[in-house]
């Protein structure tokens, strides 16, 4: 019961931060709020027993993402302009989508109940056979590195491609600046 209560309090905090992010126009404040959001969602993930994911989110979401966004703010502007269009249409679309999705959740299994379909298939198999087949007591590690190793390989490919993309974008930039420097 206490687990569910902590979970609900933290989720309410998340929703409050989200409202702040939507309303604020100072981008510096928005970035810092999104960092706080990442820390709170890492705490929620610990309550939900996903300790490995929580560590990754705290390091990557609250750490690296925030640093990257602050670096971009340093290179650009920190104040957002007032929107010229009326926000009525996006608000309508978001509200309708939200209502449809909430209607859809009513048929989903309740939170925290052991007898639901997700626990019957391959998850239970991993929990039962992990030590026997791979010798790793941390099931998340054994699934990540052994049972689903190809997923991780694909993930590495995506990160590598994104790294190449960023390098190309920023290097071209530097060369052009150099040329400008020579001519002027």
């Amino acid at each position: 019961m206490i687990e569910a209560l902590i979970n609900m309090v933290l989720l309410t905090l998340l929703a409050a931060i989200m409202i702040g992010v939507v309303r604020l126009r100072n981008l510096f404040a928005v970035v810092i709020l999104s960092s706080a959001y990442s820390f709170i969602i890492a705490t929620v993930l610990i309550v939900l027993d996903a300790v490995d994911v929580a560590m990754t989110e705290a390091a990557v979401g609250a750490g690296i993402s925030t640093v990257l966004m602050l670096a971009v703010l340093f290179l650009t502007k920190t104040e957002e302009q007032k929107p010229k269009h009326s926000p009525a249409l996006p608000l309508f679309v978001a509200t309708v989508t939200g209502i449809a999705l909430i209607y859809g959740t009513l048929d989903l299994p309740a939170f925290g109940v052991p007898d639901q379909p997700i626990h019957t298939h391959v998850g239970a198999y991993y929990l039962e056979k992990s030590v026997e087949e791979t010798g790793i007591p941390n099931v998340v590690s054994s699934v990540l590195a052994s049972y689903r190793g190809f997923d991780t390989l694909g993930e590495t490919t995506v990160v590598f491609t994104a790294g190449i993309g960023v390098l190309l974008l920023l290097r071209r930039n530097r060369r052009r600046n150099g040329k400008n420097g020579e001519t002027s």
Partner: protein
Amino acid sequence: MDFLQTVVSHYNQWIAVFLMVSGLYIVVARGNMVKKLVGLNLFQTSVYLLYISPGKILGGTPPILAAEFAVYSNPLPHVLILTAIVVGVATLSLGLGLVVRINEAFGTIEEEELFARDPEA
């Protein structure tokens, strides 16, 4: 009492939906590109919540096997979301690189001003 039961058993999904549509709203309604990327990032984070919540068993422990525990939460969503977080920061950095380039080329990161400067848009 019945309504309260429904609220408690679906609260995670409802908050996930709220975060999702708020992220969608920021991406569509706001013209500043850094703000759009923050919105996209928060949109993504709501999906983590949607995936991890059903794997939780109340009274269970994290899926690290030990003799003292019998009930573990489902490890499979954790693995999927670990992958999603790392891919998410990769796409975010690529998007931010594009924002820096756009700012170099046009001197602004506001959508309205960009449209005004590009005669074909």
